[in-house]
């Protein structure tokens, strides 16, 4: 078994009287695509929020590499190499595509007061490199030609890509994607899933939350099924597809059909 990048230990999240996540134990390995599926309200987004430090777990903790934390801070998690996209895209509409993506370079930018104010050589150099890197990533994701446009002018699938580009700029080891294919056509979904394979090939693990079960089954190395906040199954796509509990609770006849 390969090295664990993130380990979630007995994570629970409670909203008032509702356990959105209950005792979930899960591990993200290096170089894999881990699919998380489950019906609406199963707690998938909430779980990604925990992994990315946006939601403090009510119980349990995370282990990231050597660090262990029960109260993760989002920006610290980014620093530890965990990047993400959102179910409802969080880009800044009236900024250009490039400006949005540059936000993701924050960790690597020169920020020392004297260097910024003195516009030192290393400042210039770093800014240029970061910009080139951003443009390269955008081009690789197929939106290079729109770099100067305001984000609001882009169609949905391209905005999804821009958000992924921004996430990639933090040079993550794990990329959390929350329903990246929601609202996309079949063709667009396919193109995006090819991109995800490509990202994995570049050495970034992916945690993929997706309603499109077929797509997940085709893409993921492992699949975890959440239902009512609990992990009800885990395994390879084939194992999960044949798991009785899963079929009853969620899939119905869908996969067999």
């Amino acid at each position, binding site marked *: 078994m390969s090295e664990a990048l993130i380990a979630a230990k007995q994570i629970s999240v409670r909203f008032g009287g509702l356990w959105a996540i209950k005792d979930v134990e899960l591990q993200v390995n290096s170089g894999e695509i881990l699919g998380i599926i489950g019906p609406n309200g199963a707690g998938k987004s909430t779980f990604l929020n925990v992994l990315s430090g946006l939601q403090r777990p009510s119980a349990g903790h995370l282990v990231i590499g050597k660090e262990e934390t029960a109260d993760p801070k989002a920006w610290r998690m*980014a620093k530890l190499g965990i990047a993400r996209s959102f179910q409802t895209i969080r880009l800044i509409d009236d900024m250009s595509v490039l400006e949005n993506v540059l936000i993701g370079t924050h960790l690597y930018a020169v920020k020392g007061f004297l260097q910024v*104010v003195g516009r030192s050589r290393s400042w210039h150099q770093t800014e240029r490199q970061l910009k080139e890197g951003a443009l390269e990533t955008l081009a690789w994701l197929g939106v290079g030609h729109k770099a100067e446009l305001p984000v609001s*002018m882009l169609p949905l699938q391209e905005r999804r890509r821009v958000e992924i580009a921004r996430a990639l700029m933090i040079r993550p080891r794990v990329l959390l994607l929350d329903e990246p294919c929601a609202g996309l056509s079949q063709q667009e979904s396919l193109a995006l899933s090819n991109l995800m394979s490509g990202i994995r090939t570049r050495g970034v693990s992916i945690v993929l939350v997706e309603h499109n079960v077929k797509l997940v089954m085709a893409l993921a190395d492992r699949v975890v099924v959440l239902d009512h906040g609990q992990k009800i199954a885990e395994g390879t796509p084939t194992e999960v597809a044949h798991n009785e509990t899963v079929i009853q609770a969620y899939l119905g006849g869908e996969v067999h059909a």
Partner: protein
Amino acid sequence: MNLQRLKFWSAILLGLGSVLASLYVQNMYLLNVIILAVISAILAVSVNLLVGYTGQISLGHAGFYGIGAYTVALLTTRWHWSIWLSFLAAFGLSGLMGLVLGLPTTRLRGHFLGIATLGFGVIVNVVLNNWTSLTNGPVGVRGIPAPALFGISLEYKNFFLGFALACLFVIVLLVYLVVNSAVGRAWKCIRRDEIAAQVSGINVYGYKLLAFAFSGGIAGIAGALYAAFMTLVSPETFDLNQSITIVTTTILGGAGTLVGPLLGTGILTLISEWLRNFHELRLVLYGLILVLFIVVMPQGIYPFVKKHVQLWFTPRKVKIQRGSEGRHL
């Protein structure tokens, strides 16, 4: 890219030019008005860092202004510090106060932050009024020495104007350099979407504190200039009205732009001077005009003008194209 450079250097030239030109202004009334306007502009630039770039409302900026002014007033008259050292202290102390105010309040949002910062302003004002043993209470502090620069006394108002303008331009330049860097990107992102900022590795709390400290420090410099110019300070200058004027100026001019606060100060100064002709009705009309401006151009004067000038110069065809594109999305 080249256009950017051209703009940058012409702004620098404009700055230098106006500093030089100011040395030849002789009319006392004009000098008074312009120097106070320059100080207001520094305040507007300062609050713009918070309101415009970082999206944090401050309704207590007169507090920093007052702290800066009193730092200079007290250090020079009581402890006989040199004026320049006291300027530095004003910057440092106001910046520190910004940090201190930011520590508890940066977790607040919107109107809560507004009221909390307003409270800060009120508290500073009350302290200036009532800590009589230190601040001399409502009477204020007199006899602040005029600074001298390269052996030239800034007692001469035209020299003081030159100096104040130079301060303004240095501050605007600093703000420009910082805002157009990763720090500025982080601030702008925080203003629009804190969650997006966090997951991009931006320490939102830290950057808000930085904005508070930087903004407080700059307002402190404005206070220092005010003290040195007036040679006397009293609490009534640093009241709620002042705080509100500072924010209003910035937002009216166009928050989140470099030019907006400067333009806002210019226009409001002109209006306010013109309204002197109306004597007692002056502030009545001022209030009216304020409401009018906000209702007509809520996004601020500078963005409003910019948009219309751009539309003016855009060929009709492109306009239609753009329009349809907008609808499509």
